């Protein structure tokens, strides 16, 4: 993060103080000049005035030098330069960091896209496999149902045949019994008894 250092409050106070002193001295100079009037030229006075002016200038210069030194303008500028250089370095670093992050996120994004593609492909493949499995299961179930239906149909056919055969046999025997009852005679019974006797004898 870039931080800009502000100049100290003391430097501003010193500069302002020096300006006020210079203004005061200038006021004193003008005041002395105005009091004498424009009568005649006095060399001694002129020299005195000149001396005052020199003194004034010297004081002003000293104060200015002192104020400049006190304000540490050079240091401030150097500090400011260093701060700006630092800010520039930091900006460069930040840019490099940002570029690095950008590359990193680009790589991640690319990787993520690759993973998405892979997952998508895997899902598609899995879907195909699942589809094939479901179709196979459905085919198997359908085959089982078909076999069961066939068995049930066969069973029903057999059952119907058995019932028909049973009914036919019952009717045939019923008819035979009726015929026998109507037509059985003494000699038939005699023959039956004769056969029975011969069988009983051979039993033992």
């Amino acid at each position, binding site marked *: 993060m870039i931080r800009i250092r502000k100049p100290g409050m003391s430097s501003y106070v010193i500069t302002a103080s020096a300006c006020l002193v210079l203004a005061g001295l200038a006021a004193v100079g003008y005041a002395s000049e105005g009091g004498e009037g424009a009568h005649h030229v006095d060399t001694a006075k002129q020299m005195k005035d000149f001396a005052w002016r020199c003194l004034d200038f010297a004081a002003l210069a000293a104060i200015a030098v002192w104020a400049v030194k006190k304000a540490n303008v050079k240091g401030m500028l150097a500090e400011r330069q260093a701060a700006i250089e630092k800010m520039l370095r930091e900006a460069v670093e930040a840019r490099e960091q940002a570029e690095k992050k950008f590359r990193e996120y680009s790589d991640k994004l690319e990787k993520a896209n690759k993973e998405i593609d892979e997952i998508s492909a895997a899902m598609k493949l899995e879907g195909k496999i699942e589809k094939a499995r479901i179709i196979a299961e459905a085919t198997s179930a359908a085959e089982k149902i078909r076999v069961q239906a066939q068995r049930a149909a066969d069973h029903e056919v057999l059952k119907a045949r*058995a019932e028909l055969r049973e009914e036919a046999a019952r009717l045939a025997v019923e008819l035979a*019994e009726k015929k026998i009852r109507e037509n*059985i005679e003494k000699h038939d*019974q005699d023959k039956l*008894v004769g056969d029975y*006797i011969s069988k009983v004898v051979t039993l033992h």
Partner: protein
Amino acid sequence: MSTSAIARRYAKALVQLGAEEGQVDKFNGELTRINAVLAANTELSSLFSNPAYGNEAKKEILKDIIGKLSLSALVSNFLQLLLDRSRLSLLPVIAESYGTFADDLSGVIRPTLTSGLPLDESQVEAIKQSLAVSTGKKVLLKVEVNPALIGGVVTKIGDKVFDGSVRTQLAKIQDILQKG
């Protein structure tokens, strides 16, 4: 022990005694007679099974019956033993079991011959002879007529059945037709 098992034991003991005496058939006849008397007279049977009457009074009554039926001494004693042990009510079962044991002992079978149509005497005799030959025992036939058989005959000896009826033949034919 069940009453039938007890009755069989009494009957077997009497058969053995009869066999020793050589009077198995005679005892059989006597048992049948007294059993018929008691069966015909329900009041008499009730009297013997009634605990309100004293044993001595029952014995006197039993002696009177025995005397009137002229039963042998061994059968008389057997009946009194049954009375003493309160087993006289088992007499019908004992008589039946005795008959079976006696038949076994004397080689007699009593088949039931059922015919769809009435049989001639000669036919009954022929069947009797054939059964005697087949079983090797003396045959005492009980003949019945059952029109449901349609024709032919059926003989039942104990738990064995010799079936020559038209009804059974028709049933077999029906079974064959049904099985295909």
